[in-house]
């Protein structure tokens, strides 16, 4: 049934309105990152596009100082950027590897049928309600403010997503293919490694990107389990103001843009599987 032109126009109007609402805060931060100091506030009038575009904000956070600015920074973005990358990647590797193996064993060998629900329960609780023993343990084993300590907790908290996502991908592999390989004399390990894994490779990539986004987006865990050396990007961004006294809107916005880019790019790449990932495989698109 063709909608009438009036209905269609109304539909576009609503959608454009929704897009405008979505883009409004985004645009303000992105343009802010390229604005010089006088344009940070609307005191001298509201400007959406930078009147005098500048790289000064980015230069400042990467080099610790910038031309025309009296303040300087004792910590540049380099450390937090590396920390974010290292911990997110290691945490993702841990979650994806253990999640993939375990879900395969659950799907194909029928082992540990209670595992899926107990894994899921990890996501139910607010992290802060269970953080006291974690912090005591991390301090006890010397994992506070280390790359492996943060990676370990990242791997654990994103394990449920990796597990459930890979579970749905394995369930989609026809068992007949594996049966055929078994009959031809492949060992179980060979079937898994040479037959099943190549089949679920796209799923594995999706899963890794999805888990990486989650780890990269973390703020709370890094806030609690790092102090200086391995502070991640979001924590660094949030503490930038207090370290320098004045409100450094432009620099913070530049940091926000840098932190926001990888998840948005990866998220759009795996758009097709987002529903599946976010609902623990309960829904597929």
């Amino acid at each position, binding site marked *: 049934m063709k909608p009438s032109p009036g209905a269609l126009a109304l*539909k576009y109007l609503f959608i454009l309105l*929704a897009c405008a*609402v979505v883009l409004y805060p985004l645009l303000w931060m992105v343009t802010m990152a390229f604005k010089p100091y006088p344009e940070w506030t*609307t005191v001298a009038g509201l400007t959406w596009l930078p009147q005098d575009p500048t790289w000064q904000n980015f230069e400042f956070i990467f080099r610790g100082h910038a031309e025309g600015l009296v303040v300087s920074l004792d910590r540049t973005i380099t450390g937090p950027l590396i920390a974010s990358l290292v911990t997110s990647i290691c945490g993702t590797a841990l979650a994806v590897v253990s999640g993939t193996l375990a879900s395969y064993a659950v799907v194909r060998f029928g082992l540990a049928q209670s595992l899926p629900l107990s894994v899921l329960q*990890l996501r139910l609780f607010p992290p802060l309600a269970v953080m*006291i*023993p974690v912090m005591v343990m991390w301090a006890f084993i010397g994992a506070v403010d280390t790359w492996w300590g943060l990676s370990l907790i990242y791997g654990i908290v994103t394990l449920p997503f990796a597990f459930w996502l890979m579970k749905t991908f394995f*369930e989609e592999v026809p068992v007949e293919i594996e049966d055929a390989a078994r009959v031809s004399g492949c060992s179980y390990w060979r079937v898994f490694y040479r037959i099943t894994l190549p089949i679920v490779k796209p799923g594995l990539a999706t899963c890794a990107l999805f888990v990486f986004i989650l780890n990269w987006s973390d703020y709370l865990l890094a806030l609690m389990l790092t102090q200086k050396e391995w502070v991640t990007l979001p924590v660094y961004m949030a503490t930038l103001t207090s370290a320098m006294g004045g409100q450094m809107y432009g620099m913070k916005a530049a940091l926000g843009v840098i932190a926001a880019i990888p998840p948005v790019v990866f998220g759009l790449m795996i*758009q097709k599987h987002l529903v599946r990932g976010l609902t623990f495989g309960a*829904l597929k698109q």
Partner: protein
Amino acid sequence: MTDQAHTGATRTIRPQGYWVGVARDGQKMGFWFILPTFLLLLFIVIFPFFMQLYLSVTWWTPLEGIPWYSAWEVFSWFDNYLTLATDPRLWGALWRTALIMIVAVPAQFFLGMALAYLFIDQFPGRKLFYSILLTPMMIVPAVVGLMFFLLFQGTGPVNAHLGLPADFSWLTDVNRAMISVIIADIWQWTPLMFLILLAGMLGVPSDQLLAARLLGGSNWQNFVKIILPRMKTVIIIALVLRTVECFKIFDLIYIMTKGGPGVQTETISVFLYKQTFGDLEWSYVAAIGLTILIVLSVIAAKGLAYMARKQG
């Protein structure tokens, strides 16, 4: 594997299951496959649980200078639990968390549902608009906090657009701080509702919808009588997911207002964070955490049992 386990697997979406009669070498491999996950779970669930239980009946804080395992020296019975039952700040924080859930989740639901309805049919530009509308939920929550922090500054664009003076504050005002936080949460998570509900809506068999249209049902009738009943599971998933996540809300609030002004936007997570790092009341936080853990587990078990009964 036994037959009983095999019939259990037929309840999954695809009736094909796992191998029946896996040989011993296969069992062994399965064991090694599960081991890492099992160890991680053991490491993060069993041991911390007992430690939390232990610390929650003491007065231990990291300031005392005694290691955590000697916490029995400051044993306090159930004092922490008695304190939490009458702590006005804790109950205030719980109430504010509930308030955010009551306002934000339904708002996200209705907005997401309306948007999803607009996206059922194909139309030029659908893919582009779809991608734009999904962006907010992919942005790091801490960055969303920063974005709205910038927007709601006295000298920010919101005041400029509404024609309000620069001393009209949002984030430091007793009433408007909460409104700002809720707006930010709705902005970030409506796309998630939209995404899930749209997936559910597209799952409604199109021939049924077409038949209803041909029989002369109005759009509203079709929506209420054909689409909604077939989306029940999806709706439940979306609402449960958002409610659980909303209860955890921290990043956004902590960056926008730090729970302030005063305790006006202090949710349960922000409250626990402040108790942990501001007041260093670790055993008290352990007691609160354990209580939350138990209450949520009971609710989850009841919910699952209810769902199972409905399905069975």
